[in-house]
């Protein structure tokens, strides 16, 4: 069976699930549970974990992980919930299987690219390009499967499936069950559209769609104002970025005449456009505009402010959308536009600089946050910065590699934190946790794996990808030592704050509130099994991209080889070791490991062995601490400038304009009309009527002398006759 031609089915399955859920879910729900999704922190209710064992068997992943505590599940779960539990994750599983099959078939093809065009969506609108040529705007509903998109679909469907399974346990006693899964499936559909699209416009459809689903899922707890506010913030900030994306896309259309990936790449590789090494040309502008969109979607400076607030949504949402998939869309898009960025080195450098800056900024904020999910959110921003750093210096496969490994361990970390929160009945503040190691062992060990991975300890996934990034930052022609140093500092901070998190949560003294402590329990199997699987992935995933230095068999460098066809370009020889020798690489590798270990040790000292030291440091560095704790006051600045300044001020200015200018104009027109009416009236009364009256008056005046002649006496008339005769004959006298 030719799976390659059926890749259109891959997004279709989740769409089906979403449609069923969203259109029929409310009708099928026998017990009219209110849509009020009560956040775990608001009302700690633990009555059932009924679905745990049922799913432990249904999905035959027979990993025998120790289930902490088995609760009696006497709760009669509704049939609808069971249906949803099978249907929605099942759809994702189907997509995953189909993706795997299609990728396998792709690997058999020599040219490693398969394009399926379903139909033409918008056909044949002719338009003028920037250079005056006539081009046809054609947009098709087409899917492209090449190495890059194959990695993405496997990540999205694989991790997505595990998170769906996790959600069946996590969201078990929340209302709005069908709505949650409907949105989640819809999100996966849009994400798959995004990565499978064969042109930028269809990518943008998916881009917008995931933004929409992010909004819906962040604001899932509709009765909590902070959640809905966060949803709106995410959507609006995303939209700001999307404006840049659309502009970039239109400019690309104008310059290149097409938005299809294959056509764009062929044009850019053909040599028609030279490398813009000098300054900023039109390609750099396109690249920067699209990167602006990526900053919105992937939470980079300046549009990262929505991601920490997005933690208001349920934890599976944070894991899926804001760790593994949606936020990586920006990185995917930049990688997809590799040909473009290769021709615009200055723009690429800007990407790298912003990536590095974001990485260190977010890491610095994460150092002092107390909400467990906030720490992970800032960590995500920081790691995304690493990915853009890699993409910016030209190492696109490294960026995707880090995306790949990051999906595993970040999803793992989020799900673990969800498990911790679930165990504590909704508590998210780390200062009220502690000494949970023995009480929730599975969660603890899987989170330990994830933390080691993100810290960059050799053997675990994060080490390989992060180390490769640091090496490329140092050695690539577009990289520099400064970028490397920033990356290294960020790595240190990453190790530190992750282990701060671990120590505060699992080790040391327990600060848990007594009434909460009584109910601590391990999560059900539906939650712990995905955790375990992700932990395995966090360990093994990295071994696909070992450095050349280690001289392992070719299979251990499969990732780079697999992705190479997607990024190769006849113009640019993608970075070989330019003059840096192997010893430098070893040195840097060791440095990063040492720095990570130092970070872990310092965290241990400050938060486990001598916790009072951390409090003393906090007070002695009060001002720095306040600044970091308040996220560098970025949100406040945005609020002041944009929300108050532009929106309110703009609204007031426009209101004043409307009142004074527009209404003033109208009023003025009315006044002018009345005034001119007055003038007309005056004119009519005095000039026109005056002329008429004057004529009459004049005639009357003239008549006065004449009236005197009409005496009524006949003799006077006779006299005039005589006088007339006199005058008449007088004529003959004088003649």
């Amino acid at each position: 069976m030719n799976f390659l031609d059926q890749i259109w089915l891959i997004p279709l399955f989740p769409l089906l699930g979403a449609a069923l859920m969203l259109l029929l879910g409310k009708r099928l729900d026998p017990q009219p549970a209110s849509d009020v999704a009560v956040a775990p922190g608001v009302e700690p209710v633990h009555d059932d974990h009924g679905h745990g064992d049922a799913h432990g068997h249904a999905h035959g992943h027979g990993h025998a992980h120790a289930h902490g505590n088995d609760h009696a599940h006497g709760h009669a779960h509704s049939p609808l919930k069971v249906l949803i539990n099978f249907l929605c994750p099942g759809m994702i599983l189907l997509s995953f299987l189909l993706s795997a099959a299609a990728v396998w078939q792709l690997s058999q093809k020599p040219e490693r690219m398969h394009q399926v065009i379903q139909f033409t969506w918008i056909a044949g609108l002719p338009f003028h390009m920037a250079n005056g040529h006539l081009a046809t705007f054609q947009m098709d509903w087409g899917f492209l499967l090449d190495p890059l998109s194959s990695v993405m679909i496997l990540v999205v469907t694989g991790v997505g499936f595990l998170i769906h399974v996790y959600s069946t346990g996590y969201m078990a006693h929340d209302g709005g069950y069908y709505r949650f899964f409907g949105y989640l499936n819809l999100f996966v559909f849009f994400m798959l559209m995004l990565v499978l699209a064969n042109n930028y416009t269809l990518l943008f459809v998916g881009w917008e769609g995931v933004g929409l689903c992010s909004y819906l899922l962040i604001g899932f707890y509709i009765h909590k104002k902070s959640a809905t506010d966060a949803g709106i913030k995410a959507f609006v900030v995303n939209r700001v970025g999307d404006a840049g994306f659309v502009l970039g896309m239109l400019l690309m259309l104008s310059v290149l005449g097409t938005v299809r990936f294959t056509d764009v790449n062929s044009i850019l590789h053909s040599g028609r456009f030279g490398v813009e090494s000098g300054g900023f040309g039109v390609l750099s502008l396109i690249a920067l505009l699209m990167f602006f969109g990526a900053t919105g979607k992937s939470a980079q400076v300046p549009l990262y402010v929505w991601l920490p607030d997005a933690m208001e949504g349920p934890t599976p949402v944070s894991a899926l959308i804001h760790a593994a998939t949606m936020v990586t869309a920006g990185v995917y898009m930049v990688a997809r536009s590799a040909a473009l960025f290769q021709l615009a080195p200055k723009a690429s450098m800007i990407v790298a600089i912003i990536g590095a800056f974001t990485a260190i900024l977010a890491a610095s904020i994460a150092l002092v946050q107390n909400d467990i999910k906030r720490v992970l959110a800032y960590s995500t921003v920081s790691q995304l910065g690493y990915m853009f750093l890699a993409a910016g210096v030209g190492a696109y496969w490294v960026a995707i590699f880090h995306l790949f490994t990051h999906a595993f361990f970040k999803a793992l970390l989020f799900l673990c934190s969800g498990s911790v929160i679930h165990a504590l009945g909704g508590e998210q503040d780390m200062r009220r946790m502690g000494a949970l190691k023995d009480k929730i062992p599975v969660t603890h060990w899987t989170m330990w794996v994830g933390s080691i991975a993100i810290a960059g300890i050799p053997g675990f996934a994060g080490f390989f990808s992060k180390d490769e990034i640091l090496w490329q930052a140092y050695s690539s022609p577009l990289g520099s030592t400064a970028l490397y140093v920033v990356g290294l500092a960020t790595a240190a901070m990453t190790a530190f704050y992750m282990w701060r998190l671990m120590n505060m949560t699992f080790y040391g003294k327990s600060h848990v509130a007594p009434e909460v402590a009584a109910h601590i329990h391990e999560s059900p199997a539906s939650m712990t099994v995905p955790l375990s699987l992700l932990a395995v992935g966090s360990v093994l995933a990295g071994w696909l991209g070992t450095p050349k230095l280690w001289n392992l068999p070719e299979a251990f460098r499969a990732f780079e080889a697999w992705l190479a066809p997607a990024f190769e370009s006849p113009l640019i020889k993608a970075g070989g070791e330019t003059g840096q020798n192997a010893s430098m690489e070893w040195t840097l590798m060791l440095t990063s490991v040492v720095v990570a270990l130092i970070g872990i040790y310092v965290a241990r000292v400050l938060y486990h062995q001598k916790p009072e030291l951390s409090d003393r440091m906090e007070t002695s560095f009060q001002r720095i601490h306040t600044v970091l704790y308040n996220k560098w006051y970025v949100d406040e600045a945005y609020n002041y400038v944009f929300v108050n300044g532009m929106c309110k001020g703009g609204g007031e200015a426009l209101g004043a304009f409307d009142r004074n200018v527009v209404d003033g104009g109208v009023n003025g027109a009315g006044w002018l009309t009345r005034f001119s009416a007055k003038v007309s009236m005056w004119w009519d009364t005095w000039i026109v009527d005056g002329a008429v009256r004057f004529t009459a008056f004049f005639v009357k005046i003239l008549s006065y002398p004449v009236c005197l002649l009409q005496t009524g006496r006949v003799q006077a008339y006779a006299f005039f006759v005589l006088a007339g005769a006199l005058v008449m004959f007088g004529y003959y006298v004088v003649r």
Partner: protein
Amino acid sequence: MHPITTMHYLALSAALLLIGTIGVLTRRNIVIILMSIELILNAVNINLVAFSHAFKDVSGQIFAIFVITDAVAEAAVGLGILIALFRNKETVLADEIDLLKW
């Protein structure tokens, strides 16, 4: 003495005319005015007859006859008007009949 020429008759006629005119314009009594009008007509008749005699043409006298006829008619009607006027306004003075004034 010089012979009486036509000129004398003309001068006489002119004088009579002027006297009649003075009477018309000057007297207030309507009867006197009507009589003055008769004087004027007679002056005209004298003129006509003088010229008829001078040109040996009888047309002048015929014209004079018609003038007399006319004078008769006019005097009759005029006196009728006077009577009517006197009946209504109890006056025969021309000055006092000035209703048709401004």
